[in-house]
């Protein structure tokens, strides 16, 4: 996917939920039953995406908050965003929408040594959802089918 510095993203709400703890983000896709662990600088990038930051803003955030001796920050961000897209965890933010305030990275990660993000994927529980195939969610969290899906 072609990215520009102004490209911004948002979580694929409401199917995608996440929590960051101890510098690691746990992401669950309620629609597919797949879940993920996002480590190292990934938690900061995820936080930027959550706050609709642009790619340039996320890169600046990382450069100002980590000890970096790598020139690959932008490439790492771009690769992770591609992966998150492929996994249907994020979507591109509509152009013209104002960016939300950018959040600082998790406190425990600030000024630590930069490490490229790692996204680990787990599919072992997906069958649990396949047994209960309707699991779309609305904003309140209760799954529901989108209109028309019953007619499929």
């Amino acid at each position: 996917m072609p990215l520009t510095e102004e490209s911004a993203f948002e979580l694929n709400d409401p199917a995608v939920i996440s929590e960051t703890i101890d510098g690691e983000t746990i992401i669950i896709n309620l629609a597919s039953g797949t879940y993920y662990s996002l480590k190292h600088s990934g938690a900061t990038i995820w936080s930027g995406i959550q706050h609709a930051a642009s790619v340039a803003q996320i890169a600046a955030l990382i450069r100002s908050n980590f000890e970096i001796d790598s020139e690959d920050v932008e490439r790492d961000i771009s690769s992770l965003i591609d992966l998150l897209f492929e996994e249907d965890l994020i979507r591109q933010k509509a152009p013209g929408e104002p960016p939300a305030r950018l959040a600082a990275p998790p406190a425990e990660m600030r000024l630590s040594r930069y490490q490229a993000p790692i996204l680990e994927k787990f599919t072992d529980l997906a069958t649990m959802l396949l047994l209960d195939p309707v699991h779309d969610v609305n904003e309140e969290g209760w799954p529901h089918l989108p209109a028309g899906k019953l007619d499929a």
Partner: protein
Amino acid sequence: MPELPKARSALSPESFDEIFSRGLAAHARAEALAVGPIRRQFRIAGATVEFRATSIALAMLFCDALAHIEIPDEGEPDFTFHIWDEASSGIDGPSLNGWENTELSGLSEITEHVGLNCYLQVAHDRITALIGSDRYLQVDHDRAMVSAAHKPTGNAVVWLRSHNQGLKWECGSPLLTMINWWASEFGYLAVHAGSVGRADGGVLIVGRSGSGKSHAAIACLESDLFYVGDDHCLLSTNEHPISTSLYSTAKLFLTDLHRFPTLQKNEKEALLTPEGKAVFFLKGILPDRLLPGVPVRAVLLSHFSGRRDTQVQPAHPSEALLAMGSYNVLRWPSFGRTPLARFASMLRSLPCFRIETGTDISQIPRAIASVLDRAQASETA
């Protein structure tokens, strides 16, 4: 069995309420005909819950696992389960015909009419559950069982074709989904976890199926630690998390029974599940070892090592969140983000350990006791 709804059907709150009223009336008729209707009350999630069953067999099916939290009759309960079966009473279940008249054409309309928090579950092209914040309807096609609940009036109806139709093995954790739905109102979540401890504090044992949760919890039955649950607990994740006992059952594979002498002695009393597990009802075996709940002082991430010795080491809370969050969230996706946020909040404030359980069962409670001592010492410091 009432005619089953089709996936294309929908249900308005008015239709649900009509179905539900008919269910209550049907139960009243079955109860009036019953030779010895049973009424038993329990303390669940801090509330008084009454089970009204039309036969002893039904009461055993749904109440035996809760025997340890039974209370003397307190009069008007907060919530009542009305349970009957057609085989013994001749009274059919609540007719679902109203559901088949497609009053609404799309599910977006259902969410509008039933309430924002609506959950429609479809399996094998048939609606099996319609769960809203106030109304709950579940149709178990395979076992011919219909259960429905109406939170505002504090009632549920549970109809079975026959008490012995494929449900026996489920009496180890009866009505789990509906109880979870109802208890969430009070800030409780049913979690797939074991819990043991002392009166002043305990641990939550999390991990995947087969990771040794049950082993670790059941091993404590032979120790000074008390038992809250081996597979499911009601977890209150407020500022001071509490794991509350729901079922006083213990499940073990028959092949592992030799490691647990007290339970092995009572093997004849156990119920056998189709998957080769024995379900023990602990109220009748070790009533003094059961606790209704404990404040959670630490979270243990279990892993069965296969070695002789049990070892405990600190774990990252993210590991525990990955294990308990993924399973418990995906099991009940209808709760959305709430459980994950609550688990994360709890794990940020509690110490986490990885327990590698070994084959020498006696080491497990000692290891857990040492975790509790460490957690308590760190709280005091």
